[in-house]
């Protein structure tokens, strides 16, 4: 057991798995000697050599495509896309190729590969270092999408992703790399060290893909969240003194429908929160699922608390960011109705 922040936990997940399995290789922009712009792969090249950990050309298409080829060969590549905002050049290879290879080859060519990428805002990164594109990948078949919210889950889920025999997109909320963030940008940041989920076991363990966690039990209203928003949800429930149940989805495809249904049927009210733009975001899928399956338990409409349908701004980042000031009133509204 060691206290680790999210970067250290992710780095350790790589280390543990590369130690166990010689077929795991790591590639991406600046991931080699330098260890990644967020240091997630720090030290791996030194330990495992340049043919297992290497820098890639600035070509996300090529990074994904060569990872597909490596997985087709039988390796288990872990590719880093430097920022989720830069995943689009690789979109076709992910959507049309990685997501369909097992299917179109009738199972002959499964692709065990992980695409990791730092995502989300809150770091004054402007419109190209802040996006949350998870909904895109939820819409197309064949891709699992994982989003951890703390160091313990980050390591366990990344190990599960590496061991999974299907392509997994692994979004890392960069705002909480170094500490949980509750959405109060004007308060001092707390490091992970003070957080129980920073107690990360050494060695191998995994957190199952497709299983949500109940981050907070409650009776009054269900909050569906993932990534940074889990911390916003917890803080807001406290601040508002609302008996909210906070579900940390952890995986959005496949989503843990039992956990969602059980909670909403208990509380009868549901608020969905994500940082991505609202229209056709994953919150729409969650709202659709909840009203389809819990309609007669719902006492109020499912409310979406999200980023706005505009490019992620720079100077007005905190106006855009869905924090307690947005979630609080939504919770109260969900309870009023």
């Amino acid at each position, binding site marked *: 057991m060691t206290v680790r922040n999210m970067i250290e936990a992710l780095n350790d997940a790589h280390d543990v798995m590369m130690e166990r399995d010689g077929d795991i290789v790591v590639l991406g922009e600046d991931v080699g000697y330098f260890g990644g712009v967020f240091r997630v792969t720090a030290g791996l090249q030194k330990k495992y050599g340049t043919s297992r950990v290497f820098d890639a050309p600035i*070509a996300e298409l090529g990074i994904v495509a*060569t990872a597909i080829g490596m997985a087709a*060969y039988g390796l288990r590549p872990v590719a880093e896309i430097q920022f989720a905002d830069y995943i689009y050049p690789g979109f076709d290879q992910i959507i049309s190729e990685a997501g369909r290879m097992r299917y179109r080859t009738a199972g*002959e060519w499964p692709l065990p590969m992980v695409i990791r990428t730092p995502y989300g805002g809150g770091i004054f990164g402007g419109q190209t270092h802040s996006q949350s594109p998870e909904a895109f990948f939820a819409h197309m078949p064949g891709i699992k999408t994982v989003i951890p919210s703390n160091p313990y889950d980050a390591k366990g889920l990344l190990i599960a992703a590496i061991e999974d025999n299907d392509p997994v997109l692994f979004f890392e909320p960069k705002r909480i790399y170094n500490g949980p963030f509750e959405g109060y940008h004007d308060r001092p940041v707390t490091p992970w060290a003070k957080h129980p989920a920073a107690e990360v076991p050494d060695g191998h363990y995994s957190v199952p893909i497709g299983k949500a966690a109940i981050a907070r039990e409650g009776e009054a209203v269900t909050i569906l969240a993932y990534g940074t928003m889990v911390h916003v949800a917890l803080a807001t429930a406290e601040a508002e003194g609302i008996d909210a149940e906070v579900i940390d989805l952890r995986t959005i495809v496949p989503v843990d429908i039992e956990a969602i249904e059980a909670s909403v049927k208990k509380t009868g009210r549901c608020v969905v929160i994500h940082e991505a733009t609202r229209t056709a975001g994953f919150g729409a899928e969650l709202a659709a699922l909840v009203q389809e399956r819990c309609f007669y338990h719902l006492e109020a409409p499912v409310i979406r608390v999200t980023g706005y349908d505009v490019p992620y701004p720079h100077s007005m980042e905190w106006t855009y960011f869905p924090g307690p000031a947005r979630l609080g009133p939504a919770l109260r509204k969900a309870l009023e109705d």
Partner: protein
Amino acid sequence: MNKETERPNRPALSLHVPEPDARPGDEIDFSHIEIPAAGSLRRPDVAAPASDTRELVYSLVRVLDHDGAAVGPWDPRLDPDTLRRMLRDMMLVRVYDDRMYRAQRQGKTSFYMKCTGEEAIAVAAAHAMDRDDIFFPTYRQQGLLVARDYPLVKMMCQVYSNKGDPLKGRQLPIMYSDRGHGFFSISGNLATQVPQAVGWAMASAIKGDSRIAAAWIGDGATAEGDFHNAVTFAGVYRAPVILNVVNNQWAISTFSGIAGGNLTTFAARAVGYGIAGLRVDGNDALAVYAATAWAADRARSNLGPTLIEHFTYRVEGHSTSDDPTAYRPQGAGAKWPLGDPVERLRRHLVSIGEWDDERHQAQQEALAAEVRAAQREAEAQGTLGSGHYEDIGSLFEDVFEDQPWHLREQRDEALAEARRK
């Protein structure tokens, strides 16, 4: 020229849009095409630096001369059995294409694509590589499967999307895939397979394996970013891969000038990236074999990738959905100066006394019979028109290794819907 932007002593610009030499109604004229004499091009040592191929990319590797003699340093000096086997494979591909094309016309399937005139490019390459090397093909390299004795019946079942379709009716006809035969799944998305082949080759190098990869791509598809990424990665990591550009001069209705073919050769791309490049007479099976063997040797010796342009001509339409007379002169293919690959190899075998007309005739008939028989067997398992692959449960399998709840639910919905129908 529009007024607002007019400026003194600045000439008006105009857009250049390349046009093919001939359109329907015009006389097709290939006389401007430079064809170096067979045997005239030097053959660098396999271990030569890539820069040693810099001028080769503007010429053509040619082995078979006009009379069918194999000449020059690129002659692979193949034994007669191999030559006959290659001839047989090319003839078989052509018979197969004709039958399947007709089957589509008869409504037995939705779509088909022939490779007429390009048989040597796949067949000779397959024979020049090892059985356990891997291929990342496009839809015009059915010859690779034939050369590796992939069962014709299976190919046909895929084309028919019938009960025997190894791909369970999931893929468009001709989008074959077979791991056991080292034939990677054909993608409908052009060019995607090329960087994937590079990744496979990198993996082989990472594991200290000795197997190499080969990818094929059309002239038109080289414009995709995938191609650029593929060549870049292949060069940087010295991936043991052969990158074949099949320049048949057409991309559906678009001639190769729109892909940059009027500016330089496709083989010249290799120079731009600093990797080895060759330009080959794609209708000369021995030239294709020799160039492939040279590139394979380099790759196996850890000397990295070679880009090979196969200069050829798309004799038939793009696919069964296409009518080429709408955009190019009729019968252009017959006038192609580099001739027919099957005929050229046949003439060579005859010229060295290892083949004759009777045997050719006999083989032609034997192959026709073989294909007819295979077709009967395949059609016994159904066609798209009648008795196509139908297993509702399977529609929801292989999306993931195990089926998540939402696919289980959707499968049940589909089964219920089928019961109602």
